[in-house]
């Protein structure tokens, strides 16, 4: 993994950073690269409440705020920003306001690399809207100030249409940290994580491959 000056991660939901990206984040932090994580919403519309339910629609945001902070602590992210948007409404926001909001963070942080979602290939409308605003904000920077964009995609058609991801990070060394970051989002991951951890302990090749490899597409502007 190339050494970066500063990594800026921009995602709409607490836990977006955990599954596909937390190994990469942990590796950069181990490399001494500072990381800023801007998370747009608190995942207020999450559907996992525990079974039997231990939270409700109104208590979920506070629980997820704490879980997000815990995940950031596990990964060693020092600069965590919660931007105050509301889950499932990002695509309905004024696009220009969103672009300038994210643009102002990019200009302040001056990252050498941004990780976000690939617009149009990231399934959840908030993911696509966030990715689109990030790409547009970077486009508007003078060419010599533009950070690299490594984007996450997981729509069914992403490999057919975008080609294979050009970056695959092997994060084997930080798998325990990655699992801890996933577990930090307890309300949302409780059920799947137990199963995943068990398979990992039994050296299940599919789970190991899934934990080991984090895939990104470099987005080329113009």
């Amino acid at each position: 993994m190339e050494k970066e000056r500063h990594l800026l991660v921009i995602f709409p939901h607490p836990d977006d950073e955990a599954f596909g990206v937390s190994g990469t984040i942990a590796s950069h932090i181990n490399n001494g690269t500072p990381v800023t994580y801007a998370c747009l919403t608190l995942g207020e519309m999450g559907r996992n409440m525990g079974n039997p339910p231990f939270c409700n629609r109104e208590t979920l945001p506070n629980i997820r705020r704490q879980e997000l902070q815990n995940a950031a602590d596990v990964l060693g992210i020092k600069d965590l920003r919660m931007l105050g948007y509301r889950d499932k409404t990002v695509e309905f926001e004024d696009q220009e306001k969103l672009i300038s909001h994210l643009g102002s963070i990019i200009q302040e942080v001056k990252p050498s690399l941004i990780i976000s979602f690939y617009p149009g290939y990231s399934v959840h409308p908030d993911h696509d809207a966030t990715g689109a605003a990030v790409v547009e904000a970077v486009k508007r920077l003078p060419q010599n100030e533009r950070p690299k964009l490594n984007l996450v995609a997981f729509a069914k058609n992403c490999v057919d249409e975008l080609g294979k991801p050009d970056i695959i990070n092997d994060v084997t060394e930080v798998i325990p940290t990655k699992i801890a970051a996933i577990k930090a989002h307890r309300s949302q991951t409780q059920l799947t994580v137990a199963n995943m951890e068990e398979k990992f302990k039994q050296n299940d090749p599919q789970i190991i491959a899934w934990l080991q490899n984090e895939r990104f597409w470099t987005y080329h502007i113009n």
Partner: protein
Amino acid sequence: MEPVIVEAVQKELDRLSNKEVYIHLETTNGAYATHNDESFFSSGAYIRNAKIRYEQGKITGPNPYRIGLRTEIGWVYAEGITHFEVDEKNRLLLAGHDFQGKLAVALEISETPFN
């Protein structure tokens, strides 16, 4: 939240009737429903802080329950309700959780706006 107790919910519906209240109403299959199963038609609706006044609120069953509120010139209803709670702000929170425990519907009634 705890499983619906019809009498307790009915008492709360009566308490909140005939006054100005704020409603949160939501149905959802989750944003990943079609991603996980292409034959699934995903739909949902959401309204937060609708200000209404209802003259009659009623819960009917059996489990999962239905709840209807008759307003002066219209209706509000939700079906699939399994759990309820009266929280520390005295708000009536109702939700329906599916067989995996995921929220599928929510109806909440409060005398003060939701934040």
